[in-house]
């Protein structure tokens, strides 16, 4: 079968599976809709958390980004895994003992204030929408390349699927589809990685192949070859870092703390029966995540060597088919600066603009011509980093079914995360706003109806973000982390570990952290993008890493204000004492649910 029909087969089969699960696990109460009835097995929750967590950015963009920035890519690897240690040790068990549905629930009850709840709801909605925008775009990219439909049509199809199981099944439907999606995405990520590792280094384990010698040069280590190639072409050595230590430190910290503070990840730990299950399932989740995260840097270096060797100094007429395919999709462009008909790949941007603008005509070699002005360096090649994983099987010449599998995997990654985020948004509206603030008198069934309506509206808005994307998939996601780090993590942490923390401290802390981080990012990304360089940054910290400072601002403000205002009431300190002790979680919870 050709790639096209195989892709339709794989993607179609996976979608059929998701819909079947959705129909089988319809939610009948708000407890089903918000926390899957609170009876999810820790292993299943671990898998669902991993799928919830690993987004289009992890699956599609991360290895590509690492491939281009080399050593500095470790900020994503450490940042997006290390946060689970914080989550498992500092938040998950206590929030599970608390045993309510949402993050704003905890903040509202712990800080005995609807204002705090409202601020939290706004943060949840903001963070989740920034994050979901990237997912829908990812869906569009996969569809446009593999199924040859318009990006917008792809977004619409993705929306329909998510709509189906998120609106119908709520958390219950999402949990079990996420388990299926995890299996599909990890299989799809590992198969090409193992193939490519075998092909290049003779080792079936990518994590080891990454540090092995090459098949075609048994005395040369892969990473040494990569360093040498990079330096020859004018790039920095792959294994050498370019970012300053303080920036690497802050970005890593912001991503870690942000991970621990992301509401769609936290709520997953409300779905297991006991406190000890919450701890255990955080461990399972990190194992499942680590399988992909330790493979991604290996894939990044394999693809990098492959791309350089199969493209650089090659005549366009003799270029492999994958190059033309992705050129047609608009993610690769070649501009023959020295008119020699060969592709020169060097350091620096090939074009003046950030994206290629294709003209309708083709050049003498058959390449797509550009309207963009060439930049004044020797680099003739534009490659979008997002394609590195998607094109990897084609670049390595792997069989057609592997290519089709990657398409299904990319969709699984994007859809699972999108669904988790949409659920958090709908819960924030139906539960935290309607039930807790505006209309406390509504029944469980009415609340469930509000949740479904909110989920449907959120899917629609997310789709619009996918059709009119704000920026790069990964760049958008980086925003969400800084904001989560600066808002949620400190107030939840202090809510558990500092009994004296009060309403006034928490609210001012959240607002100051959020405003500071938001203003810094908006200034450098939108108001004055030209000054987005190290010498203008505060202490040399980039907008990606500023969440760390935002978190410190939050902590400091909260502690200062807390000292000057009255302590929390006794019922609240009793609540804190209660969540610190595991005993009673199951009983209290089931009583609460039924």
């Amino acid at each position: 079968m050709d790639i096209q029909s195989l892709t339709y087969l794989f993607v179609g089969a996976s979608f059929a599976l998701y819909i079947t699960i959705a129909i089988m696990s319809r939610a009948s109460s708000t407890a089903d809709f918000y926390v899957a009835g609170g009876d999810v097995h820790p292993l299943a929750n671990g898998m669902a958390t991993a799928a919830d967590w690993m987004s289009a950015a992890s699956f599609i963009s991360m290895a590509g980004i690492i491939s281009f920035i080399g050593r500095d890519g470790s900020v994503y690897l450490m940042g997006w895994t290390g946060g689970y240690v914080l989550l498992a040790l500092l938040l998950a068990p206590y929030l599970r003992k608390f045993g309510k549905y949402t993050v704003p629930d905890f903040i509202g009850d712990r800080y005995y204030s609807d204002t705090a709840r409202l601020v939290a709801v706004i943060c949840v909605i903001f963070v989740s929408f920034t994050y979901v925008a990237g997912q829908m775009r990812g869906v569009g990219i996969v569809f446009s390349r593999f199924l040859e439909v318009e990006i917008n049509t792809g977004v619409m199809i993705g929306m329909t699927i998510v709509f189906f199981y998120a609106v119908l099944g709520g958390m219950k439907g999402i949990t079990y589809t996420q388990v299926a999606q995890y299996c599909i995405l990890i299989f799809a990520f590992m198969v090409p990685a193992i193939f490519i590792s075998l092909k290049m280094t003779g080792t079936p384990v990518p994590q080891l192949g990454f540090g092995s010698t090459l098949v075609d040069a048994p005395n040369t280590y892969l990473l040494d070859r990569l360093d040498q190639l990079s330096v020859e072409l004018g790039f920095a050595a792959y294994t050498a870092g370019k970012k300053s230590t303080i920036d690497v430190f802050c970005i890593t910290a912001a991503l870690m703390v942000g991970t621990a503070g992301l509401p769609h990840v936290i709520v997953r730990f409300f779905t297991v029966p006991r406190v000890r299950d919450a701890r255990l399932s955080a461990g399972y989740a990190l194992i499942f995540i680590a399988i992909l995260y330790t493979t991604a840097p290996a894939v990044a270096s394999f693809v990098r060597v492959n791309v350089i060797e199969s493209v650089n100094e090659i005549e366009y007429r003799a270029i492999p088919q994958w190059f033309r395919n992705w050129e047609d999709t608009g993610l690769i462009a070649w501009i023959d600066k020295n008119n020699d008909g060969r592709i020169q790949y060097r350091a620096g941007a090939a074009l003046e603009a950030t994206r290629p603008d294709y003209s309708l005509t083709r050049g003498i070699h058959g390449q797509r011509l550009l309207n963009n002005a060439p930049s004044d360096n020797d680099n003739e090649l534009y490659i979008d980093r997002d394609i590195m994983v998607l094109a990897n099987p084609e670049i390595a010449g792997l069989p057609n079914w592997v290519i089709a599998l990657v398409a299904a995997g990319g969709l699984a990654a994007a859809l699972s995360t999108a669904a988790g985020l949409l659920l958090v948004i709908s819960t924030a509206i139906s539960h935290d706003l309607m039930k807790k603030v505006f209309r406390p008198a509504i029944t469980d069934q009415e609340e469930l109806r509000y949740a479904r309506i909110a989920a449907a509206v959120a899917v629609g808005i997310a789709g619009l973000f996918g059709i009119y994307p704000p920026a790069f998939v990964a760049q958008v996601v980086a925003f969400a982390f800084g904001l989560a780090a600066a808002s949620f993590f400190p107030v939840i942490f202090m809510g558990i570990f500092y009994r004296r923390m009060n309403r006034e401290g928490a609210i001012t802390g959240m607002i100051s952290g959020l405003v500071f981080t938001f203003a810094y990012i908006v200034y450098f990304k939108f108001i004055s993008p030209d000054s987005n360089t190290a010498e203008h940054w505060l202490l040399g910290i980039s907008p990606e890493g500023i969440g760390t400072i935002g978190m410190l601002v939050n902590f400091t403000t909260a502690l200062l204000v807390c000292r000057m205002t009255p302590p929390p009431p006794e019922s609240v300190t009793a609540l804190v004492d209660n969540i610190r002790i595991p005993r009673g979680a199951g009983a209290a919870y089931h009583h609460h649910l039924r």
Partner: protein
Amino acid sequence: MPGDQDRARAYWRANIRLLCILLSLWFLCSFGLGILWADWLDQFHMFGFKLGFWFSQQGSIYIFVVLIFIYVYASNRLDHRYGVDEEGDTYEEDEEYYHPDRDA
């Protein structure tokens, strides 16, 4: 009951001690070995990896996984020792779902 309160306080202190130990290891292995001392570690090699590079792209992630499982084990023991575990909790029967006492 005052006895319960003392026990809860002692449990919390032991819990904080456990968290401090594990989080120090967490910090040393990621921010220490993977970032602050990574350049120095790069002079050593393990197979084809520079050691600092390996810690920042591989080693730290393995250590994170191990740390969480040490925590799971140690905190369960702690709960048991201070008599605050969930063994005494009762659950309502629910056929469809995972049932901790029956399935674990």
